[in-house]
């Protein structure tokens, strides 16, 4: 059974049909890449799935639970965790506080009852992404690459079933790009299910089990990376030939 099922998802902004009858599945314990030219509707699909914008029609089902009519925070609590194309960090909070907030599902408690186990979880997440040293640094004081890692750390720390990463290596240096590749493969090996938007085809080839291509708001093709990336329609959509 698919972990995530999107059916007939549509969204228009004014006269622009941003997403049109989009449908695809994400299988558990896989890395699925969502690719397509700029303006294809990939980030809009992420925002529709996570509930940050409301769909005109269609449904989103996560592990058998229909999320379609749930508010964004309820979808997150149901198991969706995501990063953002343009990193959205909490500018007055430290690295450690980002992970703390992500781990704490209870946002109304006035008492802090965090024991050593909670502390260890925070350390583990920070170690996973290599941010244990700047733990007390404010988010805006990190380098761009470190901010991307913190965005990932926050999504990882939040209890989740599906990790949705929006262009995790956009604008990062080649060394860090390799680190992200390794990290994603390690996460999959640990049982994570990842849906990732990415423009870097080498990155996609290297990490993805399944590729979904979007163009003009709809799914154009999907399948194994080597098949999809040599598909004539996909090349035309990307290169305009």
């Amino acid at each position, binding site marked *: 059974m698919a972990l995530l099922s999107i059916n007939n998802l549509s969204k228009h902004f004014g006269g622009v049909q941003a997403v049109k009858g989009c449908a695809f599945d994400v299988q558990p314990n896989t890395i699925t890449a969502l690719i397509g030219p700029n303006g294809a509707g990939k980030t809009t699909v992420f925002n529709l799935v996570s509930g940050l914008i409301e769909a005109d029609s269609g449904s989103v089902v996560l592990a058998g639970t229909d999320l379609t009519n749930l508010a964004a*925070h309820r979808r997150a609590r149901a198991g969706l965790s995501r990063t953002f194309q343009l990193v*959205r*960090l909490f500018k*007055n909070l430290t690295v450690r506080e980002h992970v703390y*907030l992500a781990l704490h599902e209870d946002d*109304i408690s*006035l008492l*802090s009852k965090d024991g050593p186990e909670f502390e260890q979880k925070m350390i583990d997440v920070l170690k996973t992404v290599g941010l244990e040293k700047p733990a007390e640094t404010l988010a805006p004081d990190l380098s761009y690459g470190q901010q991307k890692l913190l965005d990932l750390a926050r999504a990882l720390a939040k209890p989740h079933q599906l990790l949705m990463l929006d262009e995790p290596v956009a604008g990062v240096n080649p060394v860090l790009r390799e680190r992200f590749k390794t990290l994603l493969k390690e996460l999959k090996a640990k049982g994570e299910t990842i849906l990732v938007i990415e423009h870097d085809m080498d990155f996609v080839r290297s990490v993805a089990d399944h590729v979904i291509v979007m163009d003009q708001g709809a799914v154009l093709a999907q399948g194994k990376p080597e098949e999809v990336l040599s598909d004539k329609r996909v090349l035309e959509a990307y290169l305009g030939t």
Partner: protein
Amino acid sequence: MEAFLIYFLTLGAIFSIGTMGYNVSAGYAGFFTLAHAGIVAVGAYTYALLTLKLDVPFGLAIIAAMVFSALVSALLSFASKKIRGDAFAILTLWFGFVVVTVLLNWRDLTRGALGLPGIPHPALFNDKVLLFLFCVIVMILSYVVLERIGSSPFGRALGAVRDDETAALALGKDVVRLRVSSAAISGAFAGLSGALLAVFLGFIDPNLFGIPLLVQFIGYMVIGGLGRMEASIAGTFLMLGVREGVRFLPFEPELVGALREIIFAAILGLVILYRPKGIMGKVELE
């Protein structure tokens, strides 16, 4: 001089409680409203009317003032679900105006512009030093409670909402509930401040709670700094000191009022321009 010092310190403690309350919504949660003076008025009038008309005991009237102010503040904050940004600021400014207008016109209950004289207080507080000590203790307790709230999971979640609402939603934070809760806490301490002001002055009238009081609270909070409670206490005492200190300058009495506002506005302007975190704030004013 000693009497003036007691007056100044008591007023400073009372206003500090109100400023700290303001800092919960504006500093912790980034939820800036212009209704604060109106909420302080709700607290002051709730206390005054309960003690004057129904002989409600001091402690109970104080608690009622806090609860009622918290409710009003929380209800007002619900509007933020639909109305945002400048429109919400205008709405909250209008709310403060409505409170004053209602208090001025509901003469049967409030005596309108004539105000409410002879507001009761425990006999103990006939000694101004004891009232001062009481207000300082309440200020310290308020500080401890609000600081603890700031470092709790709830307080940190407010920080997430303040810094990036979308990212907070993606972490599963219930942004509306958090914002309404912060408004309720803010309102409770505004109400406490208003009730203590009524006790201290023994007389209140609607014009005490207009735009000038709102501007004072904004000044105390911004100059002290957003996001830290000690900053609110420091900002309040410093700026209240400046305001009250002007009266000792060698100027004609009729000039003192204007000069006080000019100096206050100049310091506020300089802080906003050159020190957006205030004296000791955690969060920059945007």
